[in-house]
């Protein structure tokens, strides 16, 4: 997260006061996380980029509707999550699963062999993740990749905390099983 010391509330006030360029501060601050979240949700970096771009434009246009600018991050993730769900609902069959997408989509290590090994590991985990139902995938990513509390996840998804805990628990079980199967096959 980019943090130039200016609280979100102040940046939002500047944008609403007519300084549209200040929205760039918010983009720099939240774009990496939103792209990571959307990429994990959609399994396709291009579709994720579209979803995040559309979400940020929508957020700009409706910024005055953000009821609590101090929780801007949750609001942006909520909009992006909605875009992802819409995308998944009308998903094109031509979408490329992330595991088949160009490997440059994610940052890799400096050592070529280590990078290859890491990419294989990433692909394995991505396959397990993408096999989860969207709600469980979202819950796991928000909790363990984006590092959110259950309270913030509730603000993002609109789901109740016990429901989210159950989704995260089920996602862990499914992922662990898939990872152990893959581990057993490789040995």
């Amino acid at each position, binding site marked *: 997260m980019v943090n130039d010391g200016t609280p979100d509330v102040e940046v939002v006030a500047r944008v609403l006061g007519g300084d549209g360029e200040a929205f760039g501060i918010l983009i720099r601050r939240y*774009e990496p996380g939103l792209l990571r979240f959307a990429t994990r949700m959609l399994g396709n970096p291009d579709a994720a980029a579209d979803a995040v771009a559309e979400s940020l434009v929508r957020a700009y246009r409706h910024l005055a509707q953000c009821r609590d600018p101090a929780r801007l991050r949750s609001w942006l993730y909520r909009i992006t999550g909605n875009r992802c769900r819409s995308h998944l609902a009308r998903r094109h069959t031509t979408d490329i699963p992330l595991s088949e997408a160009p490997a440059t989509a994610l940052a890799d290590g400096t050592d070529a062999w280590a990078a290859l090994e890491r990419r294989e590991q990433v692909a394995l985990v991505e396959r397990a993740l993408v096999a989860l139902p969207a709600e469980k995938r979202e819950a796991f990513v928000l909790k363990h990749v984006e590092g959110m509390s259950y309270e913030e996840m509730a603000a993002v*998804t609109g789901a109740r905390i016990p429901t989210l805990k159950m989704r995260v628990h089920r996602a862990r079980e499914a992922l662990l*099983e898939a990872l152990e199967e893959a581990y057993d096959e490789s040995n």
Partner: protein
Amino acid sequence: MSPIDPRLQEALDGERDPGTLPADLRDAYERLTGAARLLAGTPRLSVAARVMAEIRQTTRSEPAENTLRRALRWLGRPRAVTVRLRPVWTLALAAGLTAILLLPFQVGSLPTPGEAEGVAQFVGHFPGARSVEVVGSFNDWSRGMLHLNDDDGDGIWHGAAVLPAGQHEYMFVVDGERWVPDPLAGRYVDDGFGAGHQNSLLIVRPTATER
């Protein structure tokens, strides 16, 4: 899919020290947290330039219409009022509204709506509120443009505006911070941000069809 040990779930939820887990559960813990770390790679993509270009385009094509021009348009017109009443609250508000309708400033003091415009009156019961305003799709959800009044301090806040004919979403903002839907709206629509919040829905009919 088999359930995993509750102690592992607790450790993953940060409610238990992972160091206290037995060896097999600690392996599973490492496997899951390791998977999460692998998924945390930062994408090399950026949509910043694309988003800012679209924002600048939006700003150029809608210069200041959202604030100054609309405010002047609203303030500069003579006024007349029509009232929308819904069954809920009707009895409680009837006496107050009757008095409101008889106030001279409202009759003939609203802008004369154009053919593709209509008049909407907003009424809300907010006892003890210090301010109430209306934000909606017709003013880009901007605050400070449509304030309701409660001149006699009875908790019934009211105001009117000429709006383009058609469907508008709106909310009341009470005391500058509390967003509440209009209990009299009768129609509501999901606000599209996924947390189950609903905006009030208003349909403005063109004045031309009422004449």
